[in-house]
């Protein structure tokens, strides 16, 4: 009976589950990525993402304590493992906690956000009131970031996927008025002034209400105080209490609630693209190849899907990371 040999049963059940997952992956990803022709099935040869190089040694990947960062850390760790590194993840309360350890070399990899990291290092060096060096353009931000990084650290290629502030409207509204960008919304607002929903600090922060007014010339007739990209903002938009609201680009609930993020065509928001912060020793070779290969797949849709898989479909970060790497033919 089950009680007598629980371990065996658990393991065999796990085997069945794994086989099912593999079968499901095979069917869903067939034809998905023609660029990668061979998938490695034997353990001795390295997957393509390592770029033919073999890594070794202990690598701790840090994650800040929120779901998206934990998932990305798992993806990075599994990719590094596939290339031969002894990689593990560790969670930290915040950047303030892990960054000193990254600088010291105890932590070797962190999934970071380009603009926020640039500003963070900038304020560490030049004080809290130092003018921001991050830009709405990711290349400019990366250049600024590379210039201020200590020599022991490096950043690899930034992904297309971002987790930054954005403005969303109801999908039906966007379709009806042919609005896809904030400039188009600004034009529309000339004849129909808008109500904006956002956190309490929105009316005073350059990226929020003042930015919409000054950079885009948007006409705003009222402000509805809600939360930073949370359920209150979404509700204000879906219920029609506000026309446009502040959300986050990688938040999976935005799409679920029938909202659509408008393109920030004048680069009002700082470019918080996903970027791996690594120890200089990992800036070339297998680790760099692997993390760059992963980042090349992390576009906005994929990032939202990864977040949805964890936050809405309740996969563990590890499960989701594993399936992502398989689906993208990375491991």
């Amino acid at each position, binding site marked *: 009976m089950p009680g007598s040999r629980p371990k065996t049963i658990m393991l065999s059940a796990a085997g069945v589950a794994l086989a099912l997952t593999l079968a499901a992956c095979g069917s869903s990803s067939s034809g998905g990525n023609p660029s990668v022709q061979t998938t490695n099935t034997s353990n001795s040869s390295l997957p393509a993402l390592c770029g033919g190089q073999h890594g070794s040694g202990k690598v701790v990947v840090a994650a800040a304590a929120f779901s998206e960062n934990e998932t990305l850390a798992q993806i990075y760790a599994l990719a590094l493992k596939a290339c031969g590194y002894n990689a593990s993840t560790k969670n930290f309360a915040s950047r303030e906690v892990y960054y000193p350890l990254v600088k010291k070399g105890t932590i070797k990899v962190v999934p970071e956000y380009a603009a926020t990291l640039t500003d963070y290092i900038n304020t560490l060096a030049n004080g809290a009131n130092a003018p921001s060096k991050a830009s709405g353009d990711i290349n400019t931000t990366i250049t600024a970031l590379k210039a201020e990084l200590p020599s022991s650290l490096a950043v690899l290629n930034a992904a297309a996927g971002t987790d930054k502030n954005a403005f969303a409207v109801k999908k039906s509204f966007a379709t009806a008025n042919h609005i896809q960008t904030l400039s188009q919304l600004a034009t529309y607002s000339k004849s129909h002034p808008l109500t904006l929903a956002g956190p309490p600090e929105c009316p005073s922060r350059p990226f929020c209400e003042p930015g919409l007014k000054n950079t885009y010339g948007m006409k705003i007739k009222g402000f509805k105080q809600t939360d930073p990209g949370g359920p209150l903002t979404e509700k204000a938009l879906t219920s029609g209490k506000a026309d446009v609201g502040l959300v986050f680009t990688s938040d999976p609930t935005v799409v679920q609630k029938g909202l659509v993020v408008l393109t920030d065509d004048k680069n009002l928001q700082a470019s918080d693209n996903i970027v791996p912060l690594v120890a200089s020793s990992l800036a070339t070779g297998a680790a760099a190849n692997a993390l760059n290969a992963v980042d090349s797949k992390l576009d906005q849709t994929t990032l*939202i899907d990864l977040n949805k898989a964890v936050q809405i479909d*309740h*996969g563990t*970060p590890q499960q989701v990371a594993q399936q992502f790497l398989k689906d993208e033919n990375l491991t």
Partner: protein
Amino acid sequence: MRPPGGFTFHKQGNPWLSWHYITSNSHAILSATSEHVTLTIEAVALGLALSIPLAALARQRQWLRSTIMNFCTALYAVPSLAFIVALVKVFNLSRLTVVIPLAAYSLVILVRNILTGLDEVSGETVDAARGMGLSNPRIFFRVRLPIATPAIVAGLRLAVVSTIELVVIGGYVGGGGYGAKVFEGFNTKSHTELATYIVLTVLLALIADSLLLLTQRLITPWRRGMATS
């Protein structure tokens, strides 16, 4: 709006407990379990290694005894969050950040039980050993400690169970074992992950307690059936 071919994940519910979760995460569960067990063993071993000399010292003078017991009691009263966070900056990623506070918490239980056990050793027994020409250190390790063993094992049971529970808080500062999973479950709002690892913690404590109870009975067969703790 969204390009086709995005990443899709099979929807899993967020029930409080699910067998499917356990089977599909068996690998993660096993490695977290081994980490959790290792941390527990390290902490209790360190606690035991410290508490034997402390107990021996406490028996020398009454004032030493009360000082040591008060010190252990005070340590025990320090909230775990404060203790663990205090050590993060000193030991960084080292396991010591979690192991040292847990060892410190086990002291009060272990020292008290070792003292109880040592107090049980009668004066006649010690005199007899002395009569056979045994030196004081030898009497301690060959006579006193063995006689005190049942009480020590009873203390170990309490210490192990509470340590297994306390390892979880270590997840807050990046410690391993079930704690890492519990905090991951919190950050990803997964009822399943949280509840599973809570239940696993209780099960692990139950298993460890039963194993120690068995050990206790094996080394002290004459006490079988007697109530402990």
